[in-house]
């Protein structure tokens, strides 16, 4: 087949090129990994009509449909209208006629306008899970309008509890739900189950004082998982109603320097998270000198340096009083090639606006 396709443009439309020339894979966003099961009819129709009849669960919880012919993309986009309206506009309140928060034209039959900000993935959270501390997909739906549509890349993973099944430690901006516990000693029978569980499942911050039959806690190292509350037979441990989150930044996989992320915020409330993430577009624009080039979010943090990241992301944010912020971050990377970062000065990357824009 003789093709002449501007692949990058097609990719921005959320169709990824195949090894088979002229075929593409559609990635349908699914913020928080949760949609009404009726949406599966749309997935099925697209796959059966224009794809190969299969669908693949994308690693970031997108519905991926393979083998769509380049020529069929306009028809697929037209059909996607209902899905985008229901999932993005109705569920998440996304302004589709914008890019990175700025007004931009968008034809509802033209499909996804950007691929930069990736689908926000989430575990099932407290909608179902006995371990979870927060509702993950509701948070994802609140964050979606802050990051999408935008050409600036960011991967956000949300985990409902510090068990971090959804690997908030391996994405640009990982969010981990947690809880602050309240101890009601008058309900404690001194069975010690919480201390046992904390030791085997968490950070062993609880200890049964044999003299008093009550629990002593090292609050500084509590990870906020809620295992004590889950196991307490008397409700002597309860969660405070306010939901808290840890934010883990800069985690990534990749061919060069994969690494687990590091904690940026601890005990942030939802309001704080929303306020901080509202600065992501501004931060990305600054690092990229206002050119939305494709670069992973974690690399943006590297280029700016953590302290600049912290300055820009916390700009104008009023942190909740409990919120703790990392003063510095010391990355630990896997360097596939030793001293990977040691190279000619002229090849070093630049962050921030060029001289004349300053």
């Amino acid at each position, binding site marked *: 087949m003789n093709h002449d396709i501007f692949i990058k443009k097609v990719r921005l439309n959320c169709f990824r090129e195949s090894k088979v020339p002229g075929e593409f894979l559609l990635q349908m966003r699914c913020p928080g990994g949760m949609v009404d099961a009726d949406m599966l009819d749309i997935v099925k129709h697209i796959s059966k009509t224009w794809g190969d009849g299969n669908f693949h669960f994308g690693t970031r919880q997108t519905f991926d449909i393979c083998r769509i012919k380049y020529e069929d993309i306009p028809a697929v986009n037209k059909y996607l209208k209902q899905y985008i309206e229901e999932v993005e506009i109705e569920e998440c309140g996304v302004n589709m006629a914008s890019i990175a928060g700025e007004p931009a034209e968008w034809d509802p039959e033209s499909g996804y306008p950007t691929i930069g900000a990736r689908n926000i993935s989430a575990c099932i959270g407290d909608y179902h899970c006995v371990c979870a501390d927060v509702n993950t997909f509701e948070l994802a739906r609140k964050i979606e309008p802050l990051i999408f549509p935008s050409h600036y890349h960011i991967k956000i993973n949300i985990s*409902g509890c510090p068990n971090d099944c959804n690997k908030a430690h391996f994405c640009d901006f990982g969010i981990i739900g947690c809880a602050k516990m309240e101890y009601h000693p008058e309900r404690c029978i001194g069975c010690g189950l919480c201390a046992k569980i904390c030791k085997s499942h968490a950070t062993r911050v609880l200890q049964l004082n044999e003299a008093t*039959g009550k629990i002593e806690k090292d609050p500084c190292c509590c990870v906020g998982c809620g295992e004590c509350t889950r196991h307490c037979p008397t409700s002597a441990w309860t969660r405070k109603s306010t939901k808290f989150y840890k934010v883990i930044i800069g985690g990534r996989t990749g061919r060069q320097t994969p690494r687990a992320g590091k904690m940026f915020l601890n005990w942030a409330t939802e309001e704080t998270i929303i306020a901080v993430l509202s600065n992501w577009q501004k931060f990305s624009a600054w690092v990229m000198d206002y050119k939305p080039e494709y670069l992973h979010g974690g690399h943006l943090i590297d280029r700016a340096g953590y302290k600049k990241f912290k300055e820009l992301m916390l700009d104008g944010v009023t942190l909740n009083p409990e919120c703790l912020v990392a003063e510095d971050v010391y990355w630990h990377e896997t360097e596939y090639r030793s001293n990977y970062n040691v190279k000619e000065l002229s090849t070093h990357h630049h962050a921030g606006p060029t001289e004349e824009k300053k």
Partner: protein
Amino acid sequence: MSYKFTKEEAAGLFAKLSEKFDIYAPIRFKDAGRYAETDIIKYGKISSFDEGVYNEKSTYPMKEVLSPIQQALFYFTEDEYRESKCSTKPMLVFARPCDINAMKVQAKIYAGNGGFIDMYYERMRERVHYALLECNADDDTCFCVSMGTNTTDDYDAAFRFTDDAILIDAKDSAFEALVKDGKACDFKPEFVKENITKVTLPVIEDKETLNKLKAHPMWEQFNGRCISCGACTIACSTCTCFTTRDIIYGDNQEVGERRRVSASCQVDGFTTVAGGGSYRKTAGDKMRFKMLHKFHDYKARFKDSDMCVGCGRCINRCPELISITETLKKMNAALEEIKKEK
């Protein structure tokens, strides 16, 4: 006589009742449940009718009003001591028939067992007046009818809270004097007549059968299922086990407090004796003990009833989804087996 109070009159009624009573009812604690965004309902003193939860089974039983999880018994200083104080003001406790009937069981243990009356229990019991709540029994964990605990006449007045009114059937004449300002009505409380779940109580004919039931392999399944957390016994309307503990204030060994704290036959350490010996080490052994205690031993001693009122809270609270009614079925099946072997 029965009386009706409108929503607008509720505050006045509450104020009047409060002059005579401390009023206790189930209260909702939002997000305080075992899992995120789940609530618990437990008993506490209320300061308005709105605080109470009347149409939903409480997570924790009414017994906590009379025998709280933790209670100071006395305070000591060198060679002197003083008993903990207790108000003498009567209490009006909103309760369902199962919870009221459970107090008969508790009283057997606390007030009279072995010829001894527990003063701390008795002084609370003397204060208690029940305000009967009707029960909708829409929960398939309930089996009060099978236990014969679906009705009671041990109450001063029956209450029904509707969307726009409070209906009261005053049974006690002293109580009636407090509510006779209300508009006369024909409210009579209704009792549950049938539960979704019904149980057949096991009949253990003789000691030999009892020993065979104890040795039956049915208990072994709990070794893999039950985590021995004790949530069932804390949620139980009838369980009374407690332990006492001396708390020393600071570094002076001569000053402190003796308190009692609920205990559980399911929790490690319950059977630990001087010298470190321990009985009923496995979850299956503990479950066997609990079931036989409730559905054999208690009745063998006190004759009148089993040590269960069918409130089903143990089922509601078990994190491992172990059902006491299904366990009873298994006991019955095991007894059938034992009978056939004979």
